């Protein structure tokens, strides 16, 4: 069964084409990594899936139901996907207690929640992401970057999503905090059976967390495959270039003497 299926997706902003003819499959309980440089269109794919960017062609299906368009069935399908944003400093309303932000996420379930049920659910979610539930009444300003990112993860989980899209969720964080967020995502996936589309420009991070990897460039997918196999023997020269550019601890970087501009 396929949790998320993207078929020949194209996204255009006015005359500019951001994504063209991208296809992706995310199976239940798996993590697919989407790696590429800035401007390669990876965030546009994420935004199109949750309805924040216009789909100009192609289809997006959640559990087989199309999530494109304004029909209520499509809208229901879109709510099964939740997005975690890159910058934890701008992803939480500075004037809203974090508990209320998490509670807002329950809207996506489409069910009516009693006040008490919602309060209990928020505590449960905060516990799940290892944030002290007694601090639900505090404003985001009282939390560190890593804690804020965990709170935005709790908000995404509040919608009981089928698919979680993590868009560069660790690139605004310090490395020591990055590892805690990555571990949390893995743990949540294991316990909740989530399917995750993990978007990042960091090849090592994508490699660590993903079962499969797709490499994007200039709005299209260059190649895809199982993580280990693809990174061990990339068939596309661009993937090879990406791999060669990742700095390795303790290994002196070598540059070709005639580095091209």
């Amino acid at each position, binding site marked *: 069964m396929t949790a998320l299926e993207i078929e020949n997706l194209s996204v255009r902003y006015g005359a500019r084409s951001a994504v063209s003819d991208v296809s992706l499959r995310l199976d239940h309980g798996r993590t697919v990594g989407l790696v590429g*440089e*800035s401007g390669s269109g990876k965030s546009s794919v994420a935004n199109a899936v*949750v309805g*924040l960017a216009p789909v100009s062609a192609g289809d997006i299906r959640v559990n087989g139901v199309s999530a494109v368009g304004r029909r209520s069935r499509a809208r229901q399908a879109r*709510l099964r996907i*939740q*997005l975690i*944003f890159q910058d934890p400093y701008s*992803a939480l*309303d*500075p004037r*809203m207690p974090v508990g*209320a932000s998490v509670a*807002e996420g*329950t*809207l*996506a379930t*489409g069910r009516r929640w009693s006040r008490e049920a919602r309060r209990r659910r928020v505590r449960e979610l905060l516990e799940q*992401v290892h944030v002290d539930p007694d601090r639900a009444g505090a404003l985001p300003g*009282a*939390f*560190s*970057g*890593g*804690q804020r990112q965990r709170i935005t993860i709790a908000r995404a989980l509040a*919608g009981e999503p089928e698919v979680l899209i993590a868009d560069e969720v660790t690139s605004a964080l*310090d*490395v*020591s*905090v*990055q*590892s*805690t*967020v*990555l*571990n*949390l995502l*893995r*743990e949540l996936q294991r316990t909740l059976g989530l399917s995750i589309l993990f978007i990042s*420009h960091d090849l*090592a991070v994508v*490699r*660590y*967390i993903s079962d499969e990897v797709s490499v994007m460039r200039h709005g299209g997918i260059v190649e895809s495959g199982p*993580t280990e196999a693809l990174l061990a023997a990339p068939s596309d020269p661009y993937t090879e*270039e990406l*791999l060669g*550019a*990742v*700095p*390795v*601890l*303790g*290994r002196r*970087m070598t*540059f*070709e003497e005639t*580095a*091209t*501009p």
Partner: protein
Amino acid sequence: MKRLLTPAGIAASLGAALLLFLVLAGPAIWGEAAAERSVADRWATAGGEHLFGTDDLGRDIFARVMTAARLSLLLTAGATAIGMVGGVVVGLTAAVLPRYPRRFLVWIMDMLLAFPWLLLVLFFTVIWGATATGAMLAIGLSGIPNLTRLVYNLASSVSDQDYVRAARVAGAGPLRVLFRHILPNIANPLLVQASASASVTLLAFAGLSFLGLGVQAPEYDWGRLLDEGIKHLYTNPMAAIGPGLVIVFAGLVFTMVAEALTPGQGLRGAAAAGRAAVLPRAGARPAPVGPAAGDRTALAEVTDLTVAFPDGAGGLVERVRGVSLSVRPGEIVGIVGESGSGKSLTAMALAGLLEAPAVVNARIRRFDDIDLAAPPTRAQKKRLGTELGFVFQDPLTSLNPALTIGRQLTEVSRTHLGMGRARARDRAVAGLDAVGIAEPHRRLGDYPHQFSGGMRQRAMIGMALTGRPRLIVADEPTTALDVTVQKQVLAVLRRAQRATDAAIVLISHDIALVSGFCDRVVVMKDGEVVEALDAQRIREEATHPYTRGLIACLPDMRSDRTRPLPVIDDLPPGGPAVADGARGGDPAAGTRTPAPREESSL
């Protein structure tokens, strides 16, 4: 509430209380005296019995001014309220409308905005006649387009925020977004605007009544009193100055309220800056040691460096503590650390770039034979300008967007080296050529936004090279770039270093990058140096638990994908810093507040 305890807050509260008192009690206390006619006393000049004198019916003008406070201030409040409510309703409606109706509405408001408000007022006055209520409606309504624009702009900037997008992804409707996210986040600037526009409104009423279009006799407000008084300006100046003073006072109170509502501005901000400027002199500075001491072979060095900033409450926060660092000619030194580790501040102090409010102390702080602790002479300034080069994280903010690349690249040669235009230009071309930018002649005429991110960063390096630097400080030069571009930029930096034999201090959060590019790596944490290591042997030689933790928690292409990543815990020094397991221990959890981004304090 805290804001009310500042000097501006106290003044604003006292002023507002006084105005409120006049509104509530003015007519009761002075109303009788204001109405009491005494033809014998007409045109009395200001004096002990009549503070502002009397009018043509012998009524006491001071009593009339006090009595008129109620009407003047209520009209002001009413007109401001009409403008605010109208502006908020129309502006927020515009913010949630679909694209075309929104454009239409904003377009109409923009047209009205271009229309002089006085003309609008005159137009409304013609419709409703020259009465007090008419004037209030006119001034209130003519304020709407202006406030609509403000509300719409504020709301649009908030609705672009990720938290609003997140609410939409969770299925929140436009009304919920409006009331839960947009309104609370624009409320404060709106309140500030309301008080500021109240003072303008007050003046507008005074002006209208003065023109005979506002309040009509026998009613009177401050504007009418001013109008009546001005006719006798030569015989009794206080008859006009009195009402004028009250109008100015009320306007000032409104402005002060606006000031007090604005966070981090006004008197409070000025006071904090003042304290900061005094502190460096007050701090006990160690006796200056001549630049001859220390490591003689080093090109630049600091020993026992501390950098502190005023904390806003009269104290100092130390952001760098007891750091010593030296750079030999031609050496590439990397400083690695997380946000708040003090790595940028250390490099800036090393290059003599820190200025007030930073409080910098060091036993030795020198570049070559120049003591950076003392104010530099002209000749030294010139040398620092050419022998030090800088490359910053975001070239779009460190290059001036309004000047061509060529203009910025020739600046150092022309101001510090005294070169002519043509020679400076040749040097700039050579600089761009050295960093691998094609057609350098043509590109000199381009503006920074016409360059891609990697090209801008290369241009920055080219700029650093034009002065023939002996030390290049590169602060996160590739953080905003993609890995492949990062590699190209680093290649350029390495080649530049080989060609000029300059020393480089490279600051980065990426320990793998620093170890791959540098000869020596200095690891910093919380403003202190944790350890200094040979870059190539970093994996083997790192002994400090923090360094080991940094190395372990960073996934690389060989990380074991089946196990959770190690996590750095905030344990006391000496304790085990690396704990395996999927616990979400956050190093900043609990006691420490999030480390502010270093750049913000500079």
